[in-house]
């Protein structure tokens, strides 16, 4: 039995008819065409389905869509402004932190949640913030470098 629900994704409002058993990842990908969010392990280990809900990283594959009606959801598609990449995205590109790219949206969002609170993280804090995001390609080193570089760039922008 479908019901109408309002979703706020990347600051846009969507009124959708969805069924209670639909997961947030299904609504984002199948109803809204936002395929940057991935469904991978499905059981809460890999983090590839990470989105920000009210600025906090959560797993969209374990979230019933109806439970986040009216909350502010940010997906990877909501980071760049047109063709202007977010500093974190820029840093990932510049530091070779992307190989197959599958973990990248979730890594960037977890990094964003960290840097939005702490613009001067230690390497340990970066690792901790990304500890729920698995990458099978890169070995993490360039990802960590990219996040630290983004922190520096964002810091400079905040305090020129």
């Amino acid at each position: 039995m479908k019901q109408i629900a309002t979703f706020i994704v990347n600051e846009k409002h969507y009124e959708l008819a969805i069924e209670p058993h639909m997961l947030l990842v299904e609504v984002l990908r199948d109803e809204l065409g936002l395929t940057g969010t991935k469904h991978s392990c499905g059981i809460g280990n890999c983090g590839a389905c990470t989105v920000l809900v009210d600025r906090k990283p959560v797993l969209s594959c374990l979230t019933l869509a109806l439970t986040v009606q009216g909350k502010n959801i940010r997906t990877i598609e909501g980071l760049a402004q047109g063709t202007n990449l977010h500093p974190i995205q820029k840093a990932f590109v510049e530091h070779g932190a992307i190989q197959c790219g599958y973990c990248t949206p979730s890594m960037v969002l977890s990094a964003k949640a960290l840097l939005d609170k702490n613009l001067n993280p230690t390497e340990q804090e970066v690792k901790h913030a990304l500890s729920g995001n698995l990458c099978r390609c890169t070995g993490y080193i360039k990802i960590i470098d990219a996040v630290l570089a983004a922190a520096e760039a964002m810091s400079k922008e905040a305090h020129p």
Partner: protein
Amino acid sequence: MARLLRPFEYREPQTVGEAVRMLSEYGAQARVLAGGTDLIVSMKKRQISPRYIVYIKDIPDLNYVHYSQETDLTIGALATHRSIADSSIIMDRYNLLATACSKVGTPQVRNMGTIGGNICKAGPSQDTPPVLLVLDARLKLVSLGGERVVPINTFFLAPFKTVLQQGELLTEIRIPPPPPTSAGCYKWATKIVTIDETLVGVAVLMSVDCADGVCTDIKIALGSVAPTPMRARQAEEVLRGKRIDDRLIKQAAQVAAGETRPRSRADYRRRMSRLLVSEAIAETWQKIK
């Protein structure tokens, strides 16, 4: 379109009263949903297919950490692991609980999962139960028939089985004030798998008379070494009322290891229990000094 979950009836009670009414009416056909980090996984795996999902996270006044100097620390069942791990009062006065909550899952899981859900799942390898055992936590359970407060050491019956009745909802965790000159810690070893499931977890809460170095009280609990989280009461007796020294700590650790009843990797678990109990007591003693 094939979906990951089977369909169900969705209910969003706005009060505890509404929720327990629904749970009583639907009985075994209903499951409580809060964070979803456990329930949704079970549903995806088709281990369970509830007819009704009773979503309780929107019920106000179940997500809090309240401290008062004289009375118990009270934690609402919907407090997330993240909020407990970040709580300055818990970091300050019940540090081992902050440690355990910051170990659960991943950052995302900690943002979603609740302490109530963790307790009610009653998995033998979970991190919060041993800590709650040494803290002498009491659990408030509400049903249509009223409410009862259950000490945590009677709550766990078997793996994934508790005294929670159908139609009952855990709403609050109560923790008495820590004794003066006491400290605690939580230490663990993990299985080498993606999610760092605990292989052996050890929680210690100890109070010491600093004048003569006598252990006035000690509580030791272990997780993932028995069907349920357990207190190592014989090990506690080794130290209680005695002057602490390294030899006694070693002895207590040995006794604790002997009290464990591990099902798998038993020899390794017993050895790690001995090591971690020894380290946990030593570390706690250092904290008090």
